[in-house]
């Protein structure tokens, strides 16, 4: 592999030996300078989508201004340069998750796209009536519905690991649910609505010991931690670039070569073929077999720039910074609002703070926070089964990125005090 690519230790520690000046780094994100409703923007909706540093935009602009052409097609210089940059992005993604080969990295539209790809290939080819797909009670709809569709077509059955009151998984039930009938464990690594980091160190080896392949939904893990697919012996992993300070509409499916070679193609079209005859078509090698049609070239280029940006900081420092902000937010909320109830209090968690303020409806709280310039997510977070389990209509969710500040937490507290005054008589 390319010598300039960071190894797993460098991804953790970061290439810059200097301590990170977080306030200065915030200037790399132009949108954070804007005002909303007459207040400075406090963007605390990072779990929905992260903001982008100017380096991402500059990389995409350079593509369009200097070397844009279709990739994997032309003999001409622009296509060659474009293809090189596109494949460099693949190498950076492989390095980011410590994939053994860059051909095991499939570019997708995002997490949802990646899971659907697997539900239609693995799901339809490998599931038989009575087979079980094991999910958890804290899945995003994107890791529920594709499997329900696959189960409906194949007669397979969905089993669900229950969630405990503190927002962690019931591991005793997990042990019992895992059986020779289980054909796939498909689970969320980090919960988007609770912030819980699930114990993959325990669950993945347990599944593997029974020969059960594992798909990890890393949509909320990839922005916050160094990922090593080899250390965990993960079969499949999916995530979206837009949550990792990269472009929208772009994502990653990692799959072990042994699986990806075996699975049938998902979509047919250009780029994914070897030879097309009306009698029979043969398919291209990995990763192209799963990348029909012209790909999201600028997405790949932009995401490569995002990864280079993160490689300088280092994922351990990203995690530590976010952890500090998330825990400070929880402490301040707990002190200021006796009526506030956290949903999800796992000890292993990322900086996602989900809560309810007394009887106030999340929509009302979110609306008043917006008036004060504070952007949070409200609602069911595309996790209706989880909200039903906690018997709440939804939550207010503040989610942090490394570019957030302590003064934004104070702005949240002040805005929430106003919401409390207006909404709770």
């Amino acid at each position: 592999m390319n010598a300039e690519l960071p190894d797993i230790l460098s991804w953790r520690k970061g290439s810059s030996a200097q301590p990170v000046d977080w306030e200065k780094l915030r200037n790399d994100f132009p949108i954070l300078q804007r005002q909303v409703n007459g207040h400075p923007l406090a963007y605390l909706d990072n779990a929905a989508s992260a903001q982008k540093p100017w380096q991402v935009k500059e990389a995409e602009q350079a593509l369009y201004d200097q070397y844009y052409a279709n990739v994997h097609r032309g003999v001409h210089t622009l296509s060659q340069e474009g293809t090189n940059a596109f494949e460099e992005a693949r190498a950076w993604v492989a390095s980011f998750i410590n994939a053994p080969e860059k051909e095991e990295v499939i570019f997708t539209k995002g997490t949802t796209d990646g899971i659907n790809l697997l539900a239609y290939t693995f799901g339809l080819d490998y599931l038989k009536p009575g087979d079980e797909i094991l999910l958890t009670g804290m899945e995003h709809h994107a890791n529920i519905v594709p499997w329900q569709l696959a189960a409906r077509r194949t007669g397979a059955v969905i089993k669900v690991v229950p969630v405990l009151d503190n927002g962690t998984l019931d591991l005793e039930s997990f042990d019992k649910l895992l059986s020779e009938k289980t054909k796939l464990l498909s689970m969320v690594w980090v919960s988007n609505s609770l912030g819980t980091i699930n114990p993959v160190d325990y669950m993945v080896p347990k599944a593997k010991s029974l020969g059960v392949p594992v798909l990890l939904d890393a949509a909320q893990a990839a922005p916050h931690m160094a990922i090593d697919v080899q250390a965990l012996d993960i079969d499949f992993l999916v995530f979206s670039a837009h949550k990792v300070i990269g472009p929208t509409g772009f994502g990653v499916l990692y799959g072990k070569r042994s699986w990806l070679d075996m699975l049938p193609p998902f979509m047919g079209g250009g780029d994914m073929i070897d030879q097309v005859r009306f009698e029979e078509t043969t398919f291209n090698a990995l990763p192209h077999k799963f990348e029909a049609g012209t790909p999201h070239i600028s997405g790949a280029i932009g995401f490569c720039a995002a990864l280079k940006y993160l490689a300088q900081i280092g994922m351990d420092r990203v995690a530590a910074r976010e952890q500090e902000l998330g825990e400070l937010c929880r402490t301040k909320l707990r002190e200021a609002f006796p009526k506030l109830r956290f949903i999800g209090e796992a000890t292993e968690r990322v900086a996602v703070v989900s809560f309810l303020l007394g009887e106030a409806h999340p929509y009302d709280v979110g609306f008043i926070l917006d008036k004060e310039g504070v952007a949070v997510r409200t609602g069911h977070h595309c996790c209706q089964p989880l909200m039903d389990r906690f018997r709440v209509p939804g939550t207010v969710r503040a989610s942090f990125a490394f570019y957030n500040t302590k003064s934004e937490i104070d702005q949240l507290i002040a805005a929430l005090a106003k919401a409390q005054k207006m909404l709770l008589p």
Partner: protein
Amino acid sequence: MSHPSIQEIGEEIVEEFSWFSSWEEKYEHLIEMGRQLPIIDAAYKTNERLVRGCQSKVWLHAESEDHRVVFRADSDAIITKGIVALLVRALSHQTPEDIVRSDLGFIDTIGLKAHLSPTRSNGLVSMIHQMKQYAGNQLNH
């Protein structure tokens, strides 16, 4: 005395809201209106009457009385409920013809139009649609 028209009620609401200069006062008034909306009978809060929004839920019940449509409605979010109260106040006890023709411009005038944007997904857009649809069905009978 006959029931005031939608137009007249709209003007009344605009007049009421003109007293408030800050958004806080305006929303406190709206929330108060939501609190005063007659409580809908639990029997009416069924799934068939539920207008689903990703953010908040709205329940709507409609029936005809003397050629006029009577609406009863509720929401689980109080700001949404305040706007529900405004809509019920303006459209309930009106003729189907007037309901179908109404433009609800007063919501815009008092600066609450953002709540009727489809992106809010609070159930209000579908609620207005269903109110007009019910009135429209009465006309066709």
